[in-house]
């Protein structure tokens, strides 16, 4: 096919639009700045709700809402139990971009796939590297190596030849986040090492494979933000320089892949960078399950663990980040809320959350969404009943063991829904306010 129809997407996990703007202004990211001045625009973008990587990246790759793709977080409860399970690529119900253009959708369908059915080719090749929520690797028309969470590189990579290559360069799937607190220098070193390995793999596959769609994701930005987002702007912070240095290397990678891609497509290909959510500094972590316990909405059996602790008579519980589930009769083994009482319980929780203040009197919750406001599609029945979105600085947590409603920890950054970013050619036909679910459609248009 015409090389000018190629699409290159560089995913930068958790990179906020506001921070990229500031870093460009300060000269930390000259390559990105140069790209923008050559006819591209940096947009602020909304992420999926909940704004966790598993959900948001799935919204990106499928172009539909969680009510269709079915991924509401990193954890779910197995049907009719309180037992935790971990959804992965096999749980995604909608076809991904590479399925829609590669002829591998199988029985999967979605509103977006229907819209483009017969209008885009079905024999295009995709390279997908380090995209979260793609384990175990599907047999796509192309190459894929899974991103977070990928417990096994071999099972997370397709085809085997790609696995052999990645092993040969000592590619790593993820960095050791637990080093961040006790060995911060090793943590930064490993983040740079991972970035270099990703760059090495990206350029290898760009050059050696035939492809039409390339999606390469860097996840180390997200890791840095979780533990050191307070260092992003604070010049006096001990790790400010290391943080900024990482972004300067990131910028270098952006410049290199942009140039390579433009050379290969005679300047005609569609290039974009994007993130799955933004970040903000944490002021307090907020443990809503504890609040529910204090307000009599939740009882816990300390002899058990995780959500199996949910005790008799519980009305609701919370899973990360702000997913609220009403303990309905028939849906859970200890269901204690009749269908007829569901609305009353939901309203009680909404009022409780919107009134919640921290010890300084600051409002904690920005908005409580009802499922119907956010989700539609065949998977909407499994959606959380309510989703609480915190004001910036209040990180809403589903931890069930905390003894207090508010706390702090070694985490310094929290995801935000409203400050994801997207770099696109200026003048691209896009909605006034971009949402991550819009991007798949913009990419597919290119292949018509």
């Amino acid at each position: 096919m015409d090389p000018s129809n190629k699409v290159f997407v560089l995913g930068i996990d958790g990179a906020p639009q506001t921070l990229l703007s500031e870093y460009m202004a300060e000269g930390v990211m000259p390559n990105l700045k140069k790209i923008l001045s050559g006819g591209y625009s940096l947009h602020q973008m909304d992420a999926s709700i909940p704004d966790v990587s598993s959900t948001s990246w799935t919204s990106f790759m499928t172009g539909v809402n969680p009510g269709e793709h079915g991924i509401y977080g990193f954890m779910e409860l197995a049907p009719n139990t309180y037992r935790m399970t971990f959804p992965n690529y096999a749980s995604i119900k909608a076809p991904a971009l590479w399925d829609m253009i590669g002829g591998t959708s199988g029985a999967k369908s979605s509103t977006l796939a229907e819209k483009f059915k017969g209008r885009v080719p079905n024999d295009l090749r995709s390279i997908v590297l380090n995209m979260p929520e793609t384990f175990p690797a599907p047999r796509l028309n192309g190459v894929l190596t899974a991103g977070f969470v990928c417990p096994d590189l071999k099972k997370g990579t397709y085809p085997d030849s790609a696995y052999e290559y990645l092993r040969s360069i000592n590619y790593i799937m993820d960095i050791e986040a637990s080093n961040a607190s006790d060995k911060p220098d090793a943590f930064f070193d490993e983040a740079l090492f991972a970035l270099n390995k990703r760059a090495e793999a990206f350029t290898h596959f760009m050059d050696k494979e035939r492809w039409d769609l390339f999606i390469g994701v860097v996840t180390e930005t997200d890791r840095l933000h979780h533990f050191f987002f307070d260092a992003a702007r604070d010049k006096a912070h001990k790790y400010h320089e290391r943080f900024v240095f990482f972004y300067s290397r990131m910028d270098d990678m952006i410049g290199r892949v942009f140039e390579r891609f433009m050379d290969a497509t005679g300047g005609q290909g569609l290039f974009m960078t994007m993130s799955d959510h933004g970040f903000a500094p944490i002021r307090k972590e907020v443990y809503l399950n504890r609040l529910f316990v204090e307000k009599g909405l939740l009882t816990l059996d300390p002899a058990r663990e995780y959500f199996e602790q949910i005790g008799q008579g519980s009305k609701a519980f919370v899973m990360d980040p702000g997913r609220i589930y009403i303990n309905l009769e028939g849906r859970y083994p200890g269901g204690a809320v009749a269908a007829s009482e569901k609305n009353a319980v939901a309203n009680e929780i909404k009022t409780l959350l919107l009134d919640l203040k921290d010890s300084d009197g600051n409002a904690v919750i920005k908005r409580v969404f009802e499922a119907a406001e956010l989700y539609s599609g065949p998977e909407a029945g499994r959606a959380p009943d309510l989703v609480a979105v915190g004001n910036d600085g209040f990180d809403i947590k589903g931890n069930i063991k905390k003894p207090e409603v508010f706390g702090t920890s070694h985490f310094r950054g929290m995801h935000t829904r409203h400050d994801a970013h997207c770099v696109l050619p200026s003048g691209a036909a896009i909605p006034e306010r971009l949402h991550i679910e819009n991007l798949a459609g913009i990419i597919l248009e290119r292949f018509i």
Partner: protein
Amino acid sequence: MDHLTALENKSIFIIREAYYRFRNIAMLWSVGKDSTTLLWLVRKAFFGEVPFPVIHIDTTYKFPEMYRFRDEYAKKWGLNLIVGRNEGQVEAGMGPGKGTKLDCCNELKTNALKRIIEKNGFKGLLLGIRRDEHGIRAKERVFSPRDENFKWDYEDQPAELWDQYKSTAAEDNHFRVHPILHMTELDIWKYIKRENIPLTELYLSKSGKRYRSIGCAPCCSPIDSNASNVDEIIAELESSHTSERAGRAQDKEDAYTMQKLRSLGYM
């Protein structure tokens, strides 16, 4: 010298080397085929005696056949058997049904072992792990240092060329010593056959199923197999391509996922 004798010689050399360098050592015996083979080799290395304690970490969830086997052979072979249990957690009801399997392993295995090491001050521990068992074990060394938190720094290890084993470490550390690291699953079975090493019957097929790898009963699944004696197991392995720990694979993936999510503040 034939292949099995060469493997045996290497193992016995490592076992004697460990005893000579550390003296205050012990071995871990899970009662599975690998550590039972290791125990057999230790007995050979010291002419029928086992000159150090043999530790069995008892999670209380092992198969009844394993307890029977342990007690029978501990007596027959005159072992100084130390049974390690995390009594507090056992009493508190810790188990695979409570919390995550990772928590269960941590409390009932890792912490139980930590206490025994602390109490006895062991400087070296012999373990029956093998390089071909699991990807991560391929990185292991024969003499592998652990810090006081049991952390294994796999990116900073001695090279171990020409049988030169590093055996000095900081005060708080102990060494894991792996005398059968170089053997494969098939080598083990062939050696078991040659030496006629006794094993629990769990490995042999009963009504179309047998265990290829054993641990705690709730976390092990049998495989489909008609191999009802060692010869048939060897024939089966020579023609099989599935992984030895396939029965434990999902748990491993979930445990890894959980650890990763926890490190980023989920859960």
